[in-house]
């Protein structure tokens, strides 16, 4: 048990955020869940406290209010050892094509806000001289597809942000950055979609892999499920003249 350590999950009302926080709590980490929907976050925190016996609290945070991010980080009663950002919104691609406001929200939720927030944590962790930043991006950011390119483009931006941040911090070697690229995960966000069973994982699998990449066997970029690395390598290797005619 590492009872002194703590984790902050940004997007703590989500299924992946819940599962991730629970995984850390099972090892004795204290948990804080930050979310816009405080009621949902509290439900998750109660679950984590009951299952693990570990302290779990909630914090209100709307990441799209980017002007308030600095105040949020400065106002934390204690800086966590690990911050995991699972904020994301798939959005309705078809609608986004004709609704610039929705398109903007998708891009801000998946790229702008998480990047601005994690930069603040990077600086706070640097000043302290330790910490891990886990950004949950998506395989959708590896190549743009017709079915979700606002989401995909924003996740691509977020993946590149994490890559650059890792590159910057690696020189000092004190703060680690982990990029997580889930493929298909059975969550509220995908509840309406038909997902291919062999490639689909449950949120606790994502949580397990995050915990491993952070605590047990440090990694920079992980795919969940792992076989998605191969799938995306093949998809990314397809020449554009071929890819553009495909519906995948």
């Amino acid at each position: 048990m590492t009872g002194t350590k703590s984790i902050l999950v940004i997007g703590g009302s989500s299924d992946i955020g819940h599962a991730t926080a629970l995984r850390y709590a099972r090892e004795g980490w204290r948990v804080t869940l930050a979310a816009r929907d405080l009621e949902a976050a509290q439900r998750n925190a109660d679950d984590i406290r009951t299952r693990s016996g570990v302290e779990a609290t909630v914090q209100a945070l709307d990441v799209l209010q980017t002007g308030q991010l600095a105040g949020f980080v400065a106002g934390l009663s204690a800086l966590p050892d690990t911050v995991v950002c699972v904020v994301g919104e798939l959005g309705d691609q078809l609608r986004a094509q004709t609704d610039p406001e929705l398109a903007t929200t998708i891009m801000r939720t998946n790229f702008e806000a998480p990047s601005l927030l994690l930069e603040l944590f990077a600086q706070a962790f640097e000043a302290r001289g330790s910490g891990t930043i886990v950004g949950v991006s998506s395989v959708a950011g590896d190549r743009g597809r017709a079915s979700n390119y606002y989401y995909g483009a924003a996740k691509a931006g977020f993946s590149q942000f994490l890559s650059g941040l890792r590159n910057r911090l690696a020189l000092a070697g004190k703060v680690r950055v982990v990029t997580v690229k889930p493929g298909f995960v059975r969550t509220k966000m995908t509840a309406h979609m038909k997902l291919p069973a062999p490639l689909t994982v449950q949120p606790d699998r994502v949580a397990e892999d995050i915990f491993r990449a952070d605590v047990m066997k440090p990694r920079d970029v992980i795919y969940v499920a792992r076989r998605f690395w191969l799938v995306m390598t093949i998809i990314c290797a397809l020449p554009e003249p071929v890819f553009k005619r495909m519906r995948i």
Partner: protein
Amino acid sequence: MSNSGVGASGLSGWGNYPRVSTELLAPQTPAGARDHLLARSGVVARGAGRAYGDAAIGTQSTISSRGLNRMRSFDAATAQLTVEAGVTIADILAAFEPRGFFLKVVPGTKFVTVGGAIAADVHGKNHHRDGGFGNIVVSFRLALPGGEIVTCCRSENAALFAATLGGMGLTGMILDATLRLLPIETAWLRQDTRVAGNLDAAIDQLESSASTTYSVAWIDCLARGAALGRSLVYLAEHATRRDKDMLGPDLAPFPSVRTSRLSVPELFPGWLLNRASMRAFNELYFRRGAAHQGKVRLVHWDPYFFPLDAIADWNRIYGRRGFVQYQCVIPQGRARRVLADILDRVSRRGDASFLAVLKLLGDASGPMSFPLRGYTLTMDFPVTETLFAFLDQLDALVVDAGGRLYLAKDARQSRATFESGYPGLAALRDIREQTGANTRLASHLSARLGI
């Protein structure tokens, strides 16, 4: 755990029979579940889909409780745990067994939800001593078809509380429940195995060990004649710290749980289940069990209580047509003769499950709960053209003896059989009329049986 039952061609229970189409709703919060209930008719709640027949399939819509999977709170001083209805017994044991708590009543699989366990008032191997699942339920919140959410316990809405235990989801949708956990000193059971040469000997064993907490007999259904009903009787108590130190000094009191990777492939060839293979299996099973006779040994709670959970999707061995699990209870005085008659017919028929389970049950509780003082026998039968006529014959024996069939297993009994077995039905019907559930909540089971 399993994706049992959900498919393009409809929804089924664990027995894969019957399979019927229904709208499947998957709310993610208790409030969402209530809203679905309020907006639908011909609707019933569904937990993990472990009821064997048609109990958890709405005639029009089915509300899954799987999204209601959060725990709420635990008070170590009173050992009271509050969880949402879709939390499973496996979830509870995973979280609380390492902290020294167990559930006083568990059914034969840990993959059932708390909501389902209440709705079926499931029983375990200790019903003769500790009663059914309802006995560990302190209270629950029930969403009524009109949208009202009421708290039910023994002192508040007591009639609704009683009718919901074993009420098969027909009084409302359970949203969450508070249970009393059982403190344990170790994760081990001290198990004593006895060999019984026939049915009479098995019943004698169960009778004479009625003061033992857990008891169950596994019957070899292929044995006939003088050996009809030959069994292995497993008796067990929770091992204390001292028991464990004596019987297994090197064992950890709470070892970490091993998860099994065994599972049955989707297209298990049905012909593998033939008489020769089953006979060979039973012979091995009995020799192995008999070798343990007279030796008290430690067994982990997982294989003791949930032996079949080690094989994921074991229901697939019966193939696409599915199977029926037949579970009846016969009042104590008539049990020997009637069970012998049933076993004899089953062994003559030949396609029964290779193993049957025999248990002693204690006094009846709520109006719709299955148990009554007597013996309960459980067997699997693959669905065939001739099966239902055969089971009707068994039903006649059960009815004549004043027994009844377990609704959580049932997929085919007649209204007459059901009505003769459940005199408490009137109480459930009254409650359903009072809450308006009679016009709104309907499963295929309730429609079939005229509840």
